[in-house]
């Protein structure tokens, strides 16, 4: 069968088998290997991509089901050469160790911040609760997402040239809000 979908703003049409899973379509047919394939059983979440802006586990979605829809993968997170604040946060706060879970973690984090620009640690942990870091590096992942949230808030404030105190939203080098007690 033929399927046409939009992946990272580019329309693609391919001849596929009905049983082809979206994760394999992205990796093996399109060569977008940033999306990882982990457990195959919708438990680990490294295959998370967006379907019409919502994170889904692409090992449990048929490629055919994405036909006519918008898919975004980790390759579509940066704007050209400019990394997304979530990607920058993972760099700044050591949000990845082996890196296997990272694409899924970042796609979920970006979707969370789109809905909730200032999530608490508990909200971040809930958002990534369907994803497994096999290095168990959750603390730094949470800090990375907080870094992105604070960084984005600061950037937005700078753009609008608000008269807020310059300390507002500042964070320490571990990605925690300034003055927070850990």
């Amino acid at each position: 069968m033929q399927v046409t979908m939009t992946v990272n703003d580019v329309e693609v049409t391919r001849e596929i088998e009905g049983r082809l899973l979206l994760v394999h379509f992205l990796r093996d047919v399109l060569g977008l290997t940033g999306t990882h394939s982990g457990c195959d059983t919708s438990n680990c979440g490294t295959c998370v991509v967006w379907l019409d802006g919502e994170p889904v586990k692409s090992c449990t979605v048929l490629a055919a089901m994405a036909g006519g829809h918008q898919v975004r993968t980790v390759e579509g997170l940066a704007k050209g050469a400019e990394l997304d604040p979530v990607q920058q946060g993972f760099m700044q706060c050591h949000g990845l160790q082996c890196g296997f879970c990272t694409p899924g973690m970042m796609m979920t984090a970006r979707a969370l911040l789109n809905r909730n620009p200032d999530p608490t640690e508990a909200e971040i942990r809930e958002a990534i609760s369907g994803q497994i870091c096999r290095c168990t590096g959750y603390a730094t992942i949470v800090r990375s997402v907080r870094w992105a949230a604070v960084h984005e808030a600061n950037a937005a404030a700078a753009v609008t040239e608000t008269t807020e105190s310059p300390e507002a939203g500042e964070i320490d080098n571990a990605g925690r809000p300034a003055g927070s007690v850990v």
Partner: protein
Amino acid sequence: MQVPAPFEYERATSVDHAISLMERLGSTSRLIAGGHSLLPMMKLRLASFDYLIDINDLHDELGYIEAGPDELRIGALTRHRELLESATLTAAFPIFADAERVIADPIVRNRGTLGGSLCQADPSEDLSAVCTALGASCVIRGPGGAERVVSMEEFHVGPYETAVGDGEILVEVRLPVRPGCGSAYEKVERRAGDWAVVSAGAAVWLDGDVISDARVGLAAVGPNTTGIPEVSAALRGQTPSESLFEQAGAIAARSCDPATDQRGSADYKRHLADELTRRTLRRAVERARS
């Protein structure tokens, strides 16, 4: 790598179109909604079909939560996330939000649907217990648009088996709205997002300080997720009290039929059925009073 056996993919554009496709393709076809129960079964080759009919495009038609004076109606394609985030549903039946918070994980909840959960009819599935506790009825549409309405007890025929026949589709779940209702759900799981070791849901209707009706639904304690009529009978006409909840818990424990498996021993699961029945009844009564 887990991959389903080959099948032909079809996409329905309306409920009637889905029914006509099923009529044409026969019993070797199956509807797929969120796919988070069906695709894992197909990957494990526990299920295999010649045709899958994708009904996700019917979300406009079958994704809704509508409160009426006598009943609250939920479209079968309403996703877990929509159930969790619905203020209307949480206000009327907080048991839904209790359960949805512990069903799978937020990403899976973006895809999975109410109808898919009920049609999977897994004995460990949470929403079947929720709908059982609330005395829900299921609207099934078949060829020619004919609709029939069945109770949860009639809907759930057995493990992985429902009253939905060939060429039929579950289109709506109806929850009766009666005054004085309180409801609650509790689940014990080994880790976040896992299937239940045991879950219990309870709904109580108070008339003054007397229980006019009460229902309990359990999950993961035997092949069939059904209500326990004996619990309802023991609670009706009584004033809520700890000793009454204890009595209900004891009935729940002896009425279920859990198996020893990797999630726990049968004895432990009976203990949970008892304890969770008490806890959910206690909270349901608190909510009915507030």
